[in-house]
């Protein structure tokens, strides 16, 4: 697939209604980007929690932990999942990426998902160590020191850090795209029960 073809394919999926019904047996999948995943703890965190959950969700869920550069094959997987009416959780790890990968990450998010990101922010020192989520329920989850904020708040914003929007939920046809600019996986890995509850609710949504 050439870049132009891929981009138009991706853009179409994001903006047009999905045409594929829900699967009867929904699956929760992790997409490990390996060398393009900045935080291995994030993969470990989601893996541990999802293994513990051990149930099929109502919808298919694809989780991409701590992404830096996002390869085209991964983009295709995400687009296909949303096209099928599933939930895609893209967790950015780009706050820990090198400059080139960070630039590629931001370009991909802008070009393929129309998500514009600001430069990474080093949070500490700060007064409270939390990200405030407003969806699927209001809760405070631990920050992970660096965030990639969205360029501006919208009615799709679901997470805030010190007044900055850092997470969004967007309908993509029948699918749902969730972007996390503050890594949650390492918090899950450390055994945070609230983070686990948050993920569980999202997976069930």
């Amino acid at each position, binding site marked *: 697939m050439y870049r132009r073809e891929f981009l138009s394919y991706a853009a179409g999926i994001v903006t047009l209604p999905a045409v594929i019904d829900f699967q009867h047996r929904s699956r929760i999948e992790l997409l490990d980007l390996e060398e393009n995943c900045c935080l*291995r*703890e994030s993969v470990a965190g989601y893996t541990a929690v999802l293994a513990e959950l051990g149930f099929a969700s109502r919808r298919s869920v694809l989780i991409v932990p701590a992404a830096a550069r996002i390869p085209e094959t991964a983009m295709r997987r995400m687009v296909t999942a949303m096209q099928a009416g599933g939930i895609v959780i893209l967790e950015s790890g780009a706050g820990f990426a090198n400059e080139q990968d960070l630039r590629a990450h931001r370009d991909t998010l802008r070009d393929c998902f129309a998500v514009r990101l600001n430069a990474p922010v080093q949070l500490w*020192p700060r007064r409270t160590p939390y990200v405030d989520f407003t969806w699927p329920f209001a809760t405070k989850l631990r920050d992970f*020191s660096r965030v990639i904020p969205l360029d501006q708040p919208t009615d799709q914003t679901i997470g805030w850090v010190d007044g900055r929007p850092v997470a969004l939920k967007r309908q993509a046809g029948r699918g749902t795209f969730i972007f996390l600019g503050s890594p949650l996986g390492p918090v899950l890995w*450390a055994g945070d029960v609230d983070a686990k509850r948050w993920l569980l609710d999202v997976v069930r949504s």
Partner: protein
Amino acid sequence: MKKAIGDNMIPREWGFERGLELIKKAGYNGIELWLGDVPWFQMATSDSDVRELRRKVENAGLVVSNVSTGLHWAAPLSARDPAARAQATRIVERQIETAVMLGTDAVLVVAGLVTEEVPYNEVYQRCLEALKPLGDKAARAGVKIGCENCNSEQRFLISPREFSQFLNDVGSPAVGIHLDVGNIHDTGFAEQWIELHGPRITRIHLKDVLKHRGRCGDQSVYTNLFLGDNNWPAIRAALTKVRYDGWLVAEMEARYRYAPDQQFYDTAQAIDRFISGRL
């Protein structure tokens, strides 16, 4: 038991060789080398230069008691940034490598650092994940990693049972505790730590502590042997009870303002007195 003192106590203007002479003359058996804390022993120091350090130590009639480092305060194994963690791991690996070259079998590691930013559970998990493979590496090299109890400064593994559970979770016979009897402050009693950890103690750091000062003031809580609040007869008895017969390494924070060499002599005599049990 054998006496040692850290090379980070040597006045900077003296240099390594003159420091070794002083340490030998003061009656010590060995020297603790601090990777990264002294100009002559850095991460960039080559293998041949490390061997040269050993030659100088042995020429002075001493041996290396262990390899310590303060580098993990800036780059802890518990760092969130994978790059900082990789650096922390490399520091421990270099300690192990140099310990072998220097003819000793123990390294000191400040395992993790709890901060407002990096919470306890993360630090615990990350230290476990780091120390398991490092324990394997140490075991293959015939070296023991002693995690130091820097209770107040680390805000981590504050009680002896908690520390013991941590070592159980690491599960490596090559990972134990480098027990500092001055670091327990008012959260416990050094003799109880000794009793509880017994055979897992890799080395003992000696200093005294002024428990009433706490850590909130601007004065150091640490002082020279017998000037503080440690119960030295109880500590000595506990070492006998657990049959500890290894190195006693002097680690003084407060240095003499005048005649810095005098501190080496005074500390050596105090350790002799401590070993003899005339307390």
